[in-house]
Structure formats: structure tokens, C-alpha cells
């Protein structure tokens, strides 16, 4: 606390305060007295503090103008009249609104990325699109290889299939229309050839649409095999039925030269599609609608909590004013 040494240390202010209030023990009091007797600075400090204390203590206790006694118990708090949800603290509303906002953001971004669509649950939209492009390309190559063996002119078919594949992956966001696109190139092939080439689009469309419609996570290789298998058969079938590969390949490169037979086929292709297409479209629409409804509900919940927060803050401000 303090000490009397050659290196003199003045009495601590707290000790002087206690000395003034008579709170020091006898030993400490005696030491303080000795120190005060030997140090003028400490004495001055004590005197000035004592003057301040005396001045404070002479202040009169003023009587209030009125008595504060109560005639009746004070009324209950206004807060008690709040409805139960409004009794929740403000942070509860703010927290719930924040959670709703985060959930909504996640849902919307996932929806925008195509992850909520039935076929896109495991892959993103881009990856899915690339996989589809690869599948279409490979199927086209597989077809061409069978054709190359026969007519030795593969250059015509490959560029024709590649734009179709990229167009399919770029233009259509969901897998089901891709499935429809998939069966378009093979459909274009026999349509100029003969009317007997009809069997080829249907199995191809089904083979391509089946895994997609089921939404199963099928590896690209496996699916490629699945897709790649039918065309040679179809091509072989077409050959057996008297179709001419050379005409097919040139006709595929120039669709405007289609005849009446091809028109008929063109009419039939969509007619063959709907069986697989209806399923995928209805399932997809149902799932998409479910996510949309969920997004809407979360948005409404977030807005409600936000409105509750604003209302709660307004109430507390009113209470402060009153």
C-alpha cells in the first residue's frame, strides 16, 4: 500500500479516502499518521480532500415537493397485453427471417443451376449438357463407323451430327427435351431414305430416353453403350430393308431434299415420342412445381418474419416514447 522509506512514496489516494472515512485499522491508521506527520505533500492532499468531503456533507437533503406514496397498486405492465408471438424477443424474428432468406437463396440458386430438376440431381446442368453432347457424338460416331465400312465417306455425317449435339445441349435446359433431340438425328437419317427405316427412331428414342426419364445416375460409358447399340442394328435393318446408305448420308447432310415419305416419317417421329415423353414431362413438371411451391412458401415465411420484426420494433419504440 504505502511505505515510509528513503525513497519516499506518498500515501495512496484510496488509503487517504479510507483514512478520511475512518475505515483503516489501528495499525494502518498509525502508519498513516506517522507518514502524514513527516510529509507535507501528503498532509496537503489530505486537507484538500477533507475540504471537498466537508463541502459535500454540508449539502442539504432536500425534501421532494410531494409524497410518492401510492393510493393503489400500479397498473400491470402494458407488455402483458401483447399477443404470445409478439412476446418473442426481436432477435427471434430477425433470426427466423435470416434463416428463411438463406434457405430461399439456396433454393433459388440450386433451381437456377438445374440441380432441382429430376435428371440433374447428381450433376450440374453444364456437366449434364456436356455428357449429353458426348453421348450424341459417340452415337453419331458409332453410326458413322458402321456407315464408313460400307461407303467409306464418313466426313459428311460427322459434321452434321456434331452441330445437332451442341444445339441439343445448348438450347434445351432439361434432360427430357434432350432425349427428344437425341432421336432427331437418327430420325433425320432414315426419313430421306425409305419408309422402311421407321423402326430405327423408335428404339433409339426409347433407349436414350429411358435412363433419362428414370432419373437414374447412369455412367456416361454405360449409357453410351446403350445408345450406341441400336444404330448399327437400325442401320443394318435399314440395309436389309433395301435402304441405301449413300443416299442416307447425303440426305442427312441436306434435309431440304426430303420427299413425301420423309414428311410422313417426320409426322410419325413425334407420334412415336410422346409415350416416353409424357412420362418425363409430367414427372419433371411435378418436381419442378414442388420446388417452386417450396420456394414460394419460404419467401412468404421470410416476409412474414421480417414484417413481424418491423412491427415488434415499432411497438418497442412506442413503448419507449410512452
Amino acid at each position: 500500500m504505502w511505505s515510509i522509506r528513503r525513497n519516499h512514496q506518498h500515501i495512496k489516494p484510496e488509503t487517504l479516502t479510507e483514512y478520511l472515512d475512518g475505515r483503516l485499522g489501528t495499525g494502518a491508521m498509525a502508519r498513516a499518521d506517522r507518514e502524514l506527520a513527516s510529509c507535507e505533500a501528503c498532509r496537503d492532499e489530505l486537507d484538500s480532500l477533507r475540504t471537498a468531503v466537508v463541502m459535500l456533507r454540508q449539502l442539504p437533503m432536500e425534501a421532494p415537493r410531494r409524497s410518492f406514496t401510492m393510493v393503489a397498486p400500479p397498473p400491470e405492465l402494458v407488455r402483458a397485453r401483447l399477443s404470445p408471438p409478439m412476446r418473442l424477443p426481436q432477435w427471434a424474428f430477425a433470426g427466423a427471417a435470416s434463416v428463411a432468406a438463406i434457405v430461399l437463396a439456396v433454393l433459388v440458386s440450386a433451381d437456377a443451376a438445374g440441380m432441382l430438376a429430376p435428371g440433374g440431381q447428381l450433376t450440374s446442368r453444364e456437366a449434364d449438357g456436356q455428357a449429353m453432347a458426348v453421348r450424341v457424338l459417340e452415337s453419331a460416331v458409332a453410326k458413322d463407323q458402321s456407315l464408313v465400312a460400307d461407303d467409306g465417306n464418313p466426313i459428311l455425317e460427322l459434321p452434321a451430327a456434331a452441330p445437332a449435339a451442341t444445339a441439343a445441349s445448348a438450347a434445351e435446359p432439361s434432360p427430357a427435351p434432350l432425349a427428344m433431340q437425341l432421336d432427331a438425328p437418327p430420325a433425320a437419317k432414315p426419313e430421306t431414305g425409305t419408309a422402311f427405316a421407321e423402326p430405327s427412331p423408335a428404339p433409339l428414342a426409347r433407349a436414350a430416353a429411358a435412363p433419362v426419364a428414370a432419373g437414374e445416375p447412369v455412367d456416361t460409358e454405360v449409357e453410351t453403350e446403350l445408345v450406341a447399340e441400336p444404330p448399327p442394328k437400325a442401320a443394318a435393318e435399314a440395309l436389309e430393308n433395301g435402304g441405301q446408305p449413300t443416299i442416307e448420308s447425303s440426305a442427312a447432310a441436306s434435309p431440304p431434299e426430303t420427299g413425301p415419305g420423309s414428311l410422313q416419317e417426320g409426322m410419325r417421329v413425334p407420334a412415336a415420342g410422346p409415350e416416353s415423353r409424357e412420362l418425363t414431362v409430367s414427372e419433371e413438371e411435378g418436381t419442378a412445381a414442388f420446388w417452386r411451391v417450396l420456394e414460394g412458401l419460404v419467401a412468404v415465411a421470410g416476409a412474414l418474419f421480417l414484417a413481424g420484426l418491423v412491427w415488434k420494433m415499432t411497438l418497442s419504440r412506442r413503448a419507449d416514447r410512452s
Partner: protein
Amino acid sequence: MVSTSETFRCTTHTPLPLRDRTGRPSCFNCIIETFQVQAYNLARRMLDDWALAEDAVQESLVSAYRAFHNYRGDNLKAWLMRIVANTCRDMMRARRSRPTSPLDPLPVDAEDADRTPSATDLPSGEESPEAHAERGELNRAIQRGLNSLQEEQRLAVVLVDIQGLSYEEVALTMNCSLGTVKSRVSRGRRGLRDFLQGIGELLPSRFRHSE
């Protein structure tokens, strides 16, 4: 429940029976009559505004009534002064955030002119009018000195030197340790001493001599 005036023998007010946490019955109006002067003076010294001080006491007493079931029956004075001090803190905070200027500003010296004079304001038979005026001047100087202190130091000094509470009671009131009380009282006194020495020439002659 004890609720009759016979039980409390209240003659000057309506009995307002209450029970604290221990279940002991009390008349809240008796408590008010016992401590209202102390509460009012604490609020007045803290806020330096008698009208605001009355509001603070009224509000504190209502809060105390509502919270009386939480009172553990240890030190009623410290418990009540704590509520008054908290109310004063809130009011000072509100005043800082929403400073108001009176429509008809009055000089500080005339602030008390329109209030009803209390018995302590009137000059006693032994005091000359000059001495009374001198005392008023000194009181205002001390109040300005108190206003110059930090909030917690002001509260400690007012509780110890004006209200006469012990350090232990102040520690209960301010909800802090005994060492903190000593430190705050010490700093507060020194701050007030420095302020008064700064305006020494303005103080009445008998106080100048003593410094």
C-alpha cells in the same frame, strides 16, 4: 395475505401490502415514506433537475413495487437505491441521445426559483440572508463539480458523502466490489476537489481560506 391497515398500523397512507421473496409481508407505502427523501436526493444530484428527479423516483418506485417479489430481504436501502440509480442512468442516457432545449431557457441560477421552497431552502433564524445566498452559491458550485465527474464516480461520491451509505452498501447498490467502490470514491473526491480548486476564486471566502 396481510392487507389490513390494523396489521400495518398505517395512519398517513393507504396500506399497500406486499411480500418479498422470503414471504415476509411489508407495506410498500411505509417503505416509500422511509426512503423517498433519500431516493429523491440521489436522483436530484445525479440528474441535476428536480422535475426529472421526481419522475425518476416515481418510475423507480413503480419498478420496485413490481419487482418486490424478487427482493431477498437483505438490504432494502441498497436495493431501492440501486433501482433509482439504474433509472437515473437510463434517463441520463435518454437525455444524451435526445438533448432538449427548453422553450424559455432559464439561467442555471434561476433554475430553482420557480419550485416550491422546502424547509431546507428557507434561511434559518440563525442564518443571515447573505450567508444563505452564499450557501446557495456554494451548493450550485458543488453540483457543477458533481456534474463534471464520470457517472459512476458521481454515483459513488453521492452515495457515500451525501447519502451517508457505507462502502458495503455502495458496493451492493452499484453491484461492484469493495475495491472498486474505494477507487471510485477516491477518484470522485479528487475530481471534485480539482474542480472546486479550479473555480476557487468564485467560491465564498470562508471556503477559499480552507483550501
